[in-house]
């Protein structure tokens, strides 16, 4: 398989994740869509690593995974504290800073 196929698949998955972030209103689902976008980026990184025949892309993908794990931990903790205050996980209800 040529790497361009993998990159095309990564693009499609990234766009789907972006649509999910824009359309969904549940904050947890939005987080999942962000994870999908990060995964798509990882796929592109690995595809380019195999295109160039070295391991740098795989190392970057590894770092992306670590950052994604940290992001999920903090994000879900924020979600939980918002849920405690507002009793809702919907992004529409977190509107205290709205004009």
């Amino acid at each position, binding site marked *: *398989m*040529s*790497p*361009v196929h*993998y*990159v095309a*698949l990564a693009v*499609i*998955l*990234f*766009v*789907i994740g*972006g*649509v*999910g972030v*824009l*359309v*969904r*209103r*549940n904050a*947890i*689902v939005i987080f*999942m*869509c962000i*994870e*999908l976008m990060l*995964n798509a980026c*990882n*796929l592109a990184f*690995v595809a380019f690593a*195999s*295109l*160039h*025949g*070295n*391991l*740098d892309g*795989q*190392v970057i*993908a*590894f*770092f992306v995974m*670590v950052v*994604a*794990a*940290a992001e*999920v*931990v*903090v994000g*879900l*903790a*924020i*979600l*939980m*504290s918002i*849920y405690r205050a507002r009793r*809702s*996980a*919907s992004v*529409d209800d977190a509107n205290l800073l709205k004009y």
Partner: protein
Amino acid sequence: MSGVLAAGTNADVIARETLFWILAVISVAAALAMILVRRAVHCAIMLAVVMLCLATMYAMQGAPFLAFVQIIVYTGAVLMLFLFVLMLIGISSGDSIVETIKGQRLAAGLAAIGFLVLLALGIGHAAIGPAARPTAANGPTNLTGLSTLIFTTYVFPFEVTGALLITAALGAMVLAYRERTTPRPTQRELAARRLSSGQLAPDPSPGVYALHDAADRPALLPDGSTSDLSVSPVLSQRAVTEGPGFVPPEETVEITAEGGGREIAPSGRADS
């Protein structure tokens, strides 16, 4: 796995192409389902499917270490964390169908199409060549090659990553910590509260009927009415009982007598 797939014979190429197309279709379908299904738990399951497909693709592309990290860290840890938080704060948190901002979905779709065209044009112009021949770094020495890179060229980002993880762990602890604002009631105060509440005994347990026995069924009182006290309020709050065949606690007696709900046999417990 990659060692087998990277052998380079014709049959291997065909097998790899077939596997790619199968996985591509599955992962795109699962990703689409993820943004379309309403319940958050189903989204998580769809995301797991996408992640497992991607892990297989990593293995096909000569990244066995990343494939296993993807399965262990993403599907194993991150997704379980998602499910854990879902259980904590919102099994019921399906999305509302109403659009809060008018035309938002249409605008999102247009923006997505535009973005897709933009990316497709960029990649189409990029002239991506064929993959380099798989080397030993894509097979048996993948792990040593990665560790050499991480601990030589990328050692500073690696250490920054450690700092980031510690900060994230601390941040999660601080955010999830709830300070007690009132002193913990002593056993004497708890006993006094129970005495003054007028109900000394614990709440009745859920109904145990001849044919049906579930936590969402109210207990039957001696006079034939049902007791709402016996059904945990968490069930209705989380809408766990909204599935097909759910019978609201008030109507349980009448409907089970007619054989509705989730009863197995129509004869119910009408006279019990």
